[in-house]
């Protein structure tokens, strides 16, 4: 028996939220008296398998094939089936990214298993897993109890702390690759990777976001926000108002109709704090609001506030961080 975690890789880089899930799997497996197993699928993924051992997997199943180089649902589902059988898993976990969420759902449906999608927490009751989900766009919580032999959950990034890697103790088990390329119906014709160094909003530890407050000079505003983000190694976010006004691309949008994020630090620059925006970032550990309007509702949810024009405050903050972090 075991808890199996799928380790997502994009262009042969493991996605950090998988280690958070593996850390939790290890804790649950320990409490259940079973093993924590990981599945690494891709092409030339030995290094990722070693990393998974370092993050505490007792067994890492490796499916290494050109067929699996990029995520395609059909061969990945077949690979998960193999790993579930090999690991005799009673709990299958993925990170709730676009790929992880879809993979967990398809595997659960095929296996007639119960699923908690986009879960934010996991615990045991009477030795069985229970997952917590946020519903009604973060306005309600529910606990999912599983009735099927296999329980499946996709976990939102940053739901659990990042574990410390240690020495690799477990074993690597290669899996038979279930499909040949001719049997895969989905063909990837073209790939446009994300910009180099771009940090995924949902994975980010720090986010610097801009809103309508940049209106006086949107290009300059987001340039200043980008510079602050660079110094902090942060991702750039935006409010719906900024996206709808065409100041920045939709993929940066945080909130009910954008991404739900949970960074350690969220710096809101010129964002008023509409309820739909708060729904997407209200769980951030520390929230900083920079706004020239002292009455802006964002100050009711922020831990620290600065009443100042972002065009002056953001560069001053960038400069101060540069100095203090020794990046000057």
């Amino acid at each position: 028996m075991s808890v199996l975690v799928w380790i997502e890789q994009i262009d042969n880089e493991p996605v950090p939220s998988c280690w958070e899930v593996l850390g939790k799997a290890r804790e649950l497996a320990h409490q259940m008296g079973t093993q924590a197993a990981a599945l690494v699928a891709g092409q030339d993924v030995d290094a990722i398998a070693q990393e998974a051992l370092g993050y505490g997997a007792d067994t890492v199943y490796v499916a290494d094939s050109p067929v699996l180089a990029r995520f395609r649902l059909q061969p990945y589902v077949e690979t998960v089936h193999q790993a579930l059988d090999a690991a005799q898993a009673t709990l299958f976990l993925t990170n709730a990214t676009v790929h992880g969420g879809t993979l967990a759902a398809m595997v659960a449906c095929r296996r007639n298993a119960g699923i908690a999608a986009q879960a934010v927490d996991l615990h045991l009751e009477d030795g069985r897993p229970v997952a917590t989900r946020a519903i009604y766009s973060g306005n309600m919580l529910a606990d999912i109890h599983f009735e099927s032999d296999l329980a499946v959950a996709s976990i939102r990034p940053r739901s659990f702390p990042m574990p410390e890697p240690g020495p690799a103790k477990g074993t690597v088990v290669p899996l038979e690759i279930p499909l040949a390329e001719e049997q895969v119906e989905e063909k990837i014709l073209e790939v446009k990777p994300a910009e180099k160094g771009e940090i995924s909003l949902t994975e980010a530890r720090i986010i610097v976001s801009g809103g309508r407050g940049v209106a006086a000079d949107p290009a300059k505003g987001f340039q200043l926000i980008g510079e602050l983000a660079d110094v902090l190694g942060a991702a750039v976010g935006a409010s719906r108002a900024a996206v709808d006004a065409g100041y920045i691309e939709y993929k940066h949008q945080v909130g009910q109709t954008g991404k739900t994020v949970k960074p350690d630090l969220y710096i809101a620059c010129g964002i008023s704090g509409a309820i739909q925006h708060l729904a997407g970032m209200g769980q951030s550990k520390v929230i900083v609001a920079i706004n020239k309007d002292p009455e802006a509702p964002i100050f009711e949810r922020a831990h620290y506030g600065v009443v100042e024009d972002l065009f002056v405050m953001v560069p001053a903050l960038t400069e101060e961080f540069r100095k203090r972090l020794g990046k000057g």
Partner: protein
Amino acid sequence: MKVVALIKQTPDTAELPKVSVDEARSGQIQTTMVINPWDEFAAEEAIQLADRLGATSVAISMGRPDQTDALKHALAMGIQSAVLVDEAVAAEGDEWTAAEALAQAIRLQGDDVQIVLAGKMSVDGNSGLIHVGVACKLGWSLLVNVTRIAEVADGRITVERSFEGGQEVVQVPLPVVISVAKEINEPRYPSFMGIRKANRAQIPVLGKDEIPISPAPPRARWENLRKPEQRTVQVKIIQGATPQEKAAGLVDALLAEKVI
């Protein structure tokens, strides 16, 4: 060819915080109900695709027999016909039961259904499971987070899709289930004529006779529905004579919080 859009009726997003635990448990929601905002993109794409391909568009929803407002919105936008699946057919079931009911409803539309479009998730359930379950139950190809439908030809469909690592252009054989992303289009507002037509439309309701689901125990139980604890924070306003002084004060505070 037929193009199906899956539609859900959900609480108005501005009123989501008002939904009580009792309402959620019973399903008797008192707030204003609208078409799930993510499904508007699916409806719009179905209309455009039907135009492009010379196909007909059908909207399918699941709910109580009187919950037809979302379907009427889709009809008013320009979807050609609508069908409601009585949620009683999947009573006591879970997401996979709902997916099975919708899959059966899609099959009832005929063999010429080649494309099923859905929003990425509902604003109430937040699971993003149903389109996956429908593809699973139908045994069709599945493409998620699609930002553009490039071509439908020779029994195959080519689309652009987006994920955390960038974009890909991919091709799969038809028939296909697709979840659409916000970038795919700009949903139109219903026209006055469209609203009048939608109000006159007869929406057939499919029940247990048309959609027989063998009762199976749900694979997951939902318990302990509750409101999240409200975080109460007291904002600390960083004071300073100059922006530089304020910046220094803020950086001190954030370094002390150990979040940098």
